[in-house]
């Protein structure tokens, strides 16, 4: 079951995505980079209530990823992130399809992701220092990039929802990232409308 906080974030994300599409310039890109490589800061709202915490937990860390475009708007994304808090860390190792909408300097994209989540809780015991669990994770989201230089974009935001099965229960997490995207290679051709 999706948590209330995750649902709110998802609704906000959808509204923002719609807003961006509506206000974007009308020029349509017919050429695009073949590869995107991303690195940046990441925030994860971890569904810690499912493992006994009194509330969800804020974790901070890094998100890196790469997308290779098979067609102008369609590619395959690899997404890796690590988020950390005082007692807890959460890693996601994900892969999945990505669809991009390009308009002039803007790119909005949506993606589906599947992979593994590795969650660790550091609560020292007499015989061990932490508890760790690895499980299936799936979800998806999207984001918005804005071109800054010919080969560099600002990832204004990327927001993803993850459903992960760890510690014998399920977590519904929301992750938001921001950072820099480096482009190289090209696919398609440019045409002004």
């Amino acid at each position: 079951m999706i948590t209330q906080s995750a649902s709110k974030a998802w609704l906000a994300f959808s509204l923002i995505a719609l807003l961006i599409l509506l206000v974007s310039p009308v020029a349509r890109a017919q050429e695009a980079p073949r590869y995107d490589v991303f690195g940046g800061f990441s925030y994860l709202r971890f569904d810690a209530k499912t493992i006994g915490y009194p509330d969800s937990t804020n974790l901070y860390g890094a998100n890196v990823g790469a997308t290779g475009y098979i067609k102008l708007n369609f590619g395959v994304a690899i997404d890796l992130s690590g988020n950390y808090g005082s007692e807890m860390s959460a890693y996601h190792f994900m892969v999945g399809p990505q669809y991009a909408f390009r308009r002039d300097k803007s790119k909005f994209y949506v993606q589906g992701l599947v992979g593994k989540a590795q969650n660790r809780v550091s609560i020292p015991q007499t015989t061990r220092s932490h508890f760790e669990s690895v499980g299936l994770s799936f979800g998806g989201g999207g984001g918005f990039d804005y071109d800054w230089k010919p080969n560099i974009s600002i990832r204004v935001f990327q927001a993803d929802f993850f459903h992960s099965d760890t510690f014998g229960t399920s977590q519904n997490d929301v992750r938001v990232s921001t950072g820099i995207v480096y482009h190289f290679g090209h696919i398609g051709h440019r045409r002004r409308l």
Partner: protein
Amino acid sequence: MARSIAAVIGLWLLIGLSACTSGTHLAYVTLPGENAVGAYRIKNSSSAFTSIVGSPYLAGQSPAAIVVHPSNRFAYVANRIDNTISLFKIDQTIGSLSEVLPRTPTGLDPAAMTMNSDGTLLFVVNEVSNSISVYSVNPTSGALALEAGSPFATAPSPIAIALSPSAKYLYVLNGNLGSVFAYSVTSSGGLQSIAGSPFSVGTGPFGLTVDPNEKFVYVVNSSEDTVSILAITAIGALSQVSGSPFPTGTTPVSVATSTSGQYLYIGNEGSSNVTAYSIDSSTGFATLITGSPFATGSGPVFLFTDPDGTFLYLGSQTSNNITSFSIDPSTGILTDTAQTASTTGPPGGIFVSK
């Protein structure tokens, strides 16, 4: 670009604002067969259980009684085969347990424990060595130190213990003699027998508790299916109230009061139900509550009222679980919440922290 950045900031704020804290309690359940303690977070609104990561946590051999320090920083578990007490530190974020070794020695077979409301003294009855161990509690580390004169001798087979809320009187239930031994507690944790002690109850007494208003002591008599209600005198002595003992279901083995002291609940292991009484605060006379007895899962062996007085928790050693009933504050009527926490083995005791 600026609009997009503003939208992103809005999204982050929304995520932050959506993080609302909901009230919860922590519950710890001893598992004698597993030599461990299970830990759960309980939602105050529904009594829904969530197992805490890493639970159950290892303790000594055959842990049974458990007490949580009023500060919620420490938990004490009596290990009946080890003849020790395990001290656990409670993680202040998640509520997990971490044992602090070495364990503290007790007498033989520490069967039951209780702590004063200040958290300065811990009392333990040792069923085989026929004694009461009294420990002072270090408020910083939680460490236990045996008080001078402790252990104090008592009659053979003490099986349960209860302290009056003011910590002036200690009551020890003796199963063999069918009686309650009463002690006054000195400021240093010393015990002095109260005049007239011991006080007779029914046959096969199994559990006792003290009224939160310090007016009555309740004892369930498992062999005769009754509950004895005894009034506490000004010096801590006991006398049966008019009408006592009152009937219960089959094989009553546990007893608890509501936090107000207005209602009395008795767990009947044989008939798998809870007998509920309303208590006259002046006379101690017990009147059955409408709907009593309330059916439970099979074989409830212990009861515990949560600190808010909202729920009654029951442990079953045949179903291996903890279940809960909501308490109607105006009538005392119980309603099954259908919330259940399965345990990895038969539960031995429970403590729900504040």
